[in-house]
């Protein structure tokens, strides 16, 4: 009965404690009954018994909690299996929801019990004559149970997310199927389900008058009959589908959807405009830079032109100097010639 499931990091000494308790009880039978309510105070006379009784109380509750956690995880695995089943027609929605509720309640109950257990342990620690082993033991027990509960809760969350994803996939499939069949002839059925409270009687109703009609052209009547015969089959399959589809396309919903689309489109357009403005402003900076570069180039070229003009002037004026020097040289030569000749 006290068996723990799964690996634990502590030693299971509950049997020893039970043995001690029994021996104590046999010796002081009437007084031990006062200690069954937990957290039996600091009565020194009954300390050893109260310690043992509290410890067994603690271990009892801890084992109960462990058992409950195990059961919850079993139920959770069943729920996970149910959620994984993604067949189109066999949707165990109600069972899944019931299981979900039950598991949630159990988990919250376990949470509360675990907190109580921790409080019990804390109150135990107040008593002086509890050995170190006991405290570590109880601490380990509580931690282990907490870890297991946390794992179970995490699994629960995963299963729930899986379930919602599957439901979304199923919805899309439903919409896909109902869209395909609506292209043939099923809009009346899809539309009539939420609007008319009794779709089925309203659909066979056209049959009798279609069969019994004797109006205008005979071409209309046989075609009506043909359509009426095929409609019950379609209708049944679509009603089945509609049982599955939680959301259906009513006029209002399609309008709401269209509005949403329009709103999101406008939002996107706003974004695009903002980006456009950013790009254009960046390009404006680039244009300004280009302008500056061109101005620099212009200034440089003008300066260079001035320099070259000056250079040209100096070169041409150099020729002037050259002529003068030549004259001087010729004059010297003349003088030399005169002296020689």
């Amino acid at each position, binding site marked *: 009965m006290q068996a723990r499931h799964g690996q634990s990091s502590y030693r299971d000494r509950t049997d020893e404690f039970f043995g001690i308790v029994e021996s104590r009880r046999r010796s002081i039978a009437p007084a031990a009954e006062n200690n069954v309510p937990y957290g039996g105070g600091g009565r020194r006379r009954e300390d050893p018994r109260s310690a043992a009784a509290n410890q067994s109380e603690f271990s009892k509750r801890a084992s109960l909690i462990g058992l409950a956690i195990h059961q919850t995880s079993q139920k959770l695995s069943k729920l996970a299996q149910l959620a994984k089943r993604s067949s189109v027609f066999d949707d165990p929605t109600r069972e899944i929801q019931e299981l979900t509720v039950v598991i949630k309640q159990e988990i919250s109950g376990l949470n509360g019990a675990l907190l109580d257990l921790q409080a019990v342990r804390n109150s135990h620690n107040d008593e002086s004559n509890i050995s170190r082993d006991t405290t570590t033991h109880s601490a380990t027990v509580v931690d282990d149970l907490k870890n297991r509960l946390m794992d179970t809760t995490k699994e629960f969350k995963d299963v729930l997310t899986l379930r919602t994803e599957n439901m979304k996939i199923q919805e899309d499939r439903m919409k896909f199927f109902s869209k395909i069949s609506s292209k043939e002839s099923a809009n009346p059925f899809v*539309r009539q389900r939420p609007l008319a409270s009794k779709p089925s009687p309203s659909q066979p109703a056209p049959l009798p008058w279609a069969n019994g009609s004797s109006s205008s052209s005979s071409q209309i009547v046989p075609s009506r009959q043909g359509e009426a015969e095929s409609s019950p089959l379609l209708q049944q399959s679509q009603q089945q589908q509609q049982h599955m589809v939680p959301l259906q396309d009513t006029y209002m919903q399609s309008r709401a959807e269209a509005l949403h689309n329009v709103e999101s489109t406008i939002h996107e357009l706003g974004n695009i405009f903002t980006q456009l403005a950013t790009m254009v402003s960046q390009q404006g900076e680039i244009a300004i830079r280009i302008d500056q570069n*061109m101005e620099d180039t*212009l200034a*440089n070229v003008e300066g260079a032109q001035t320099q070259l003009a000056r250079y040209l002037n100096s070169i041409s004026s150099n020729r002037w100097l050259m002529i003068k020097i030549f004259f001087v040289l010729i004059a010297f030569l003349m003088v030399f010639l005169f002296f020689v000749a």
Partner: protein
Amino acid sequence: MNAAMKITALLVLKAAPETTDPVILANASDVSHFGYFQRSSVKEFVVFVGRTVASRTPPSQRQSVQHEEYKVHAYNRNGLCAVGFMDDHYPVRSAFSLLNQVIDEYQKSFGETWRSAKEDSAQPWPYLADALTKFQDPAEADKLLKIQRELDETKIIIHKTIDSVLARGEKLDSLVEKSSDLSMASQMFYKQAKKTNSCCTIL
């Protein structure tokens, strides 16, 4: 999706309680695409089906029935029922907003006189005929559809704009590079010119 959406007929009926037959108050049909000899039968067919659907539509309800290649949409508002014969491509929402408009218009122009009508009225209602031709394009009837369409066009235009802005950006980038190269070159030119100008004493 835009392939040949058309309205074949629009009817306004007074939908009496289930037992009696609905009374036709206005009728407009476009039978031009049928052969000449089929036209009258098509008109009768329209009348008949319209009456049937209107009688089966409970008040304040919308209904769509598929019949052969037409979808028949009916909207019953407190006894005044509008029925439209459209083909499969016509979006359902636009059809119902069109029926809404028709009923509003009818109530505006005829008030409550229709409640006393006991037999089919033979006089045509010009608004209905106009509506038939105008609303062949579902965007006219359904403002939402129109808005969505315009928004899509705008989006396309904006995408093109962004593409051209990106091209402009590229061109500007190349221009910037070239202009900076030009500026460098002109600077070198200036320095060179200054250098040749400074040492002029040699020759």
